[in-house]
């Protein structure tokens, strides 16, 4: 498997934002300095086989990181999450008003940068993705404290939220190369959707301390009244009484007591199997993609090949 370490691209530069708003720059400094920039890294990896120019790579990386971080600024305020990447969230450290405005400014900056670049298809697609992201966030917010949701509903929300950004990461480089073939983009869209789903489900497992190599705080979603994808899967065969107790769990030990360790492990095994099927489908679509790529772009498949392992199984 190829290693995912690469040059750290500087996404944010003070000159990108008005110098007379020092708190804004300080906020962005905090925000961008702590992120892993995975989406930007994905674009850099795809840039190689597609022979994108440096300014195109910079534009795409900045765009996706701006959109992603804008959504984080707003999400943290909407969810009232006090921590982001183990540090106080922007709305806590500064003010909620600044967090909203900072997020809005990033999105505005995206539109300025893309319109200066001048690729109309890229602008249209980016606008479409941002609206999907917002729609997903809206619908997800309507599901807080809703304990009767199904996995299918959550998948639809994740298609709008998480998957949108991954679809953008995979399609935007081709749009930059002015390769607009519908058939190619349909397959790329499906690959992006699956990657987004796998990433989200892997992330949801972290909340239950599964493959939590980074030591993230656990049960954050549950404590916020939100049942994530593994939570929904776990609750599927529980009695109403067990579900009530599960809602109130504050620690993993308590959760194991409520559902039983054996039940938890069995459900985890089934969930992993379900996602292995998604990975198998992803690999199948990758073969379809291979058939559509011209020879000079064949390196794209090898970039995309390892992603499910990284995003779901967290293997780097």
């Amino acid at each position, binding site marked *: 498997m190829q290693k995912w370490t690469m040059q750290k691209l500087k996404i944010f530069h003070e000159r990108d934002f008005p110098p007379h708003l020092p708190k804004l720059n300080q906020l962005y400094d905090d925000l961008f300095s702590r992120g892993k920039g995975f989406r930007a890294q994905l674009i850099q990896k795809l840039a190689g086989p597609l022979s994108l120019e440096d300014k195109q790579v910079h534009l795409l990386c900045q765009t996706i990181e701006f959109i992603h971080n804008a959504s984080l600024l707003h999400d943290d305020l909407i969810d009232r999450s006090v921590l982001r990447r183990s540090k106080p969230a922007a709305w806590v450290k500064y003010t909620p008003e600044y967090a909203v405005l900072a997020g809005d400014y990033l999105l505005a900056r995206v539109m300025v940068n893309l319109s200066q670049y001048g690729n109309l298809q890229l602008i249209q697609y980016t606008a479409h993705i941002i609206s999907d992201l917002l*729609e997903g966030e*809206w*619908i997800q917010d*309507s*599901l807080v404290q*809703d*304990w*009767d*949701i199904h996995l*299918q*509903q959550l998948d*639809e*929300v994740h*298609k709008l939220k998480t998957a949108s950004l991954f679809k953008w990461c995979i399609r935007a480089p081709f749009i930059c190369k002015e390769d607009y073939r*519908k*058939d190619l983009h*349909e*397959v790329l869209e*499906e690959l992006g959707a699956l990657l987004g789903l796998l990433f989200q489900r892997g992330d949801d497992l972290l909340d239950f301390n599964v493959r939590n190599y980074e030591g993230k705080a656990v049960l954050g979603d549950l404590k916020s009244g939100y049942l994530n994808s593994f939570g929904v899967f776990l609750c599927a065969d529980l009695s109403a009484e067990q579900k009530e107790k599960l809602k109130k769990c504050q620690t993993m030990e308590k959760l194991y007591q409520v559902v039983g360790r054996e039940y938890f492990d069995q459900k985890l095994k089934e969930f992993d199997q379900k996602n*292995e*099927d998604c990975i*198998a*489908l992803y690999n*199948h*679509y990758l073969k*379809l993609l291979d058939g559509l790529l011209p020879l000079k772009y064949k390196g794209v498949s090898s970039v995309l090949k390892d992603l499910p392992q990284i995003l779901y199984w967290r293997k780097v």
Partner: protein
Amino acid sequence: MSEFITLPHRDPKFIKYLKGQIEGTRAIPLKTFFLDDFQRRCTTFQVIPAKEIIRPSWWRVFSHLLRLRLLTLTLAPLLTTLFWLYAQGIPAFEKVSAFLLGSVFFLHGAIFLFNDYLDYVKGYDWLYPALGSGVLQKGWMTGRGVFRLGVAFTALAIVLAIPVFQKSPLWLWSAPALALLALGVYMFLRQDIRSYWWGDLLIFCCLGPLISVGVASLWSVEDLKVPLWLGFFWGFFSLSILHSRRLRSLFYMRQHFQGKTHFDQLLWRLKVILVGSFFIWSLGFLLFPFLSFVFLSILFLSGLGGLLKILSKVRSPASSALLIFRKFLLIFHYLLAGMLSGYFLF
């Protein structure tokens, strides 16, 4: 581990996979590519060995396929009218009633079987895999099996209807004609009848006055005020239930949303109000002759109160409060069917 195969629609193997004609396997369509280009269109199937499919009991499969939960939509107007006729001293429970009940049951089943089969074969379910009965999408039955069952149900409905239509006035033949019209519009024009202005009216008639007045006409009843009243009540209630299902479907259709029916064109809040209104109008029709019965009025008003409370929690089509709302409507439907029948009987 699952296997996948992507087949162009021009490939003869495609239709075999789709209809489940490959022995020992079930092919579940997952995604169709190049929808706009018929020449290149292809579908990805998940191919599972038939013995690995975990199928529930046949009762549960048929319950999903035939939408048994919605059976009261067709049987309630029929049964309550029969009980009313019985209460009038008319011998309504003769052999012909059994044929009528059987025919309506099989017609109900046939409509849903063909609906599922056509949605599956024509690709509607590929766009919206979360909709439909789930029987074909989960591989519990093959497309070929569902089609054959649909044909059998239609044949039984027709055979059982013969003694009924021998007894009925000519105008009652419009009922199956209208049902065939709706099916034809769907099969050949690929249009939901609700996209036409007369669509909801047709549904209202077929699940309401047409059945109740039709049944009363079989026994040559001249004063049709009560059957008409029953028909209006059940017709509005059915519209409420069917449109509440549409509210939920909008969540999954969202990304391909083209506003196919008049209902789809409305704003979200108006949709919810319309669904609630159909229900309240139906209660209005029901309550009117019973206002003197305090107990019934309290029961119906508490149902209304419960409905408004649930509706206030519906924040989006994804909300499970919608599911609760639909279940509430269905349970209330069963309850009222039982109560009305019991009222006429005793």
